[in-house]
């Protein structure tokens, strides 16, 4: 019991460290409080894409869904996307009656260079665009529980909730629910496993700073290859992902600002490799989508 408690505490620490280390919601809010409307949307755009991509990664690492029996697996996925130089800047326009109205192409996004961009105006006035957090990548870690199987169907639950109290990262809340069904069970003799599934997730950070929902449906294929002491399993998946995100914060006058990112859909190809030794599994994958990324994961199950 003590060992189990320690394991859960360690898992919690890993997740908390990963989440705590991203720019805190209060700090993101500080950075964007200078912006309203279109500038706020442009500033946060790479973060929206990254969250959407990460949520829809590491959802599976095999297409094998047993037809029956109790199968439980506790997994921890680390999903990350890499940003390109283009993600670091956006076209921003001066606000607040600044004259002359000026548009710059090199204002930092939330992942862009840390330095402010200063534009000179009429009569000695100036306008400053805030810096970004200079991120090359953005990662999310999510624990998930996989439970099966009933007639070749399994459920996947992602859940994470932190009330961070005095730690100013903002409360974190991730909930995800999915189902997968084995297709290959209807085609005995197929050399590969095939499954199809759906997944719905909702991610919230801070006091309504970020409220994102992701939905994915698709099919996967994998093939188990016994290798001495382990099972190696290459896998691939093709899905259609949908993502939308709302951001709410207070501007510098304390007035609420709401930024709604349009719902977007993207095709998503996953290529990965899964290794399993007894109850321990390890997987890594690369995801090709509107925002490509990779994921690593570890699982314990039977």
């Amino acid at each position, binding site marked *: 019991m003590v060992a189990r408690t320690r394991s859960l505490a360690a898992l919690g620490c890993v997740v908390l460290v990963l989440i705590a280390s991203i720019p805190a919601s209060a700090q993101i809010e500080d950075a964007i409080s200078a912006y309203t409307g279109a500038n706020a949307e442009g500033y946060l755009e790479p973060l929206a894409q990254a969250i959407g991509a990460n949520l829809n990664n590491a959802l599976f690492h095999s297409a094998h869904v047993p037809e029956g029996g109790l199968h439980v697996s506790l997994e921890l996925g680390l999903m990350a996307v890499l940003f390109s130089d283009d993600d670091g800047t956006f076209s921003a326009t001066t606000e607040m009656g600044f004259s002359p109205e000026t548009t710059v192409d090199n204002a930092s996004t939330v992942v862009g260079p840390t330095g402010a961009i200063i534009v000179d105006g009429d009569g000695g006035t100036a306008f400053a665009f805030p810096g970004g957090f200079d991120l090359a990548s953005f990662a999310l870690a999510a624990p998930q529980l996989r439970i099966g199987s009933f007639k070749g169907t399994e459920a996947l639950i992602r859940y994470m909730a932190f009330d961070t109290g005095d730690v100013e990262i903002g409360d974190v809340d991730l909930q995800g629910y999915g189902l997968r069904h084995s297709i290959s069970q209807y085609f005995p003799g197929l050399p590969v496993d095939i499954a199809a599934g759906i997944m719905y997730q909702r991610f919230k950070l801070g006091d309504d700073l970020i409220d994102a929902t992701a939905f994915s449906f698709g099919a996967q294929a994998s093939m188990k290859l016994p290798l001495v*002491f382990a099972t190696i399993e290459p896998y691939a998946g093709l899905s259609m992902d949908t993502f939308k995100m709302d951001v709410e914060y207070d501007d*510098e006058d304390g007035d609420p600002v709401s930024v709604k990112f349009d719902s977007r859909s993207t095709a998503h190809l996953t290529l990965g490799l899964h290794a399993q030794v007894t109850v321990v599994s390890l997987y890594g994958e690369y995801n090709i989508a509107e925002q490509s990324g990779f994921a690593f994961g570890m699982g314990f199950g039977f």
Partner: protein
Amino acid sequence: MNNKMRGIIALLIVLGLAAGITGCKLLHEKVVDIVLRNYAEMDFETREDSADYVGDPKIVDVAEGIDDALEGFDPPLERSAITDARLLSASYEVTWLEDPGHDWEISGSVWIQYGLAESVIIDYSEQSLYDALGAGEISAKLNASGVNLFNAALDDFRSGLDPVLFFWVEGDSCAPEPTAQDMLEFDWTGRFYMYVVSPLRLEVFDLYGE
């Protein structure tokens, strides 16, 4: 060594490789330029029977609003850390007008005094009070020498002083000309928007950060 043991070692090797690929240092210190915008606001009451008048001065403590805003950051930002502070824009808004049944078109200027120096900071010309009433904030045309005084006060604020600015209105012309029987009576609010840039030091998780 049994197969199970070999398997665990293999997994550890793969984990080590993954850690190596992602880099040893995951936490990176960043110094991000945060932009804080603030404004100084002053209310003016005009009760005049002449087009040529000088209004009562309004006093603005530059430090007051900015210090409060700096303390609102998390963690609070230090005044001494500010790297840049400038005037951004100005606006005015007519909030009340005693309607005599005809419009007024007013021209004049808003003056600023800092220390012993004074200068015009806003010029307004043939401003219709009918048009201005209820039109919200109207962008003001700024005068460079007045802006320089405002910016000098911001520089002194950065240096640790508590600069105080004086603003007043000087009417120049008005159509029609106000009289004791047809007084020019309206209230308006002036706002001077400014920004400060301050570095915010924090650590972020970045798999591939430098």
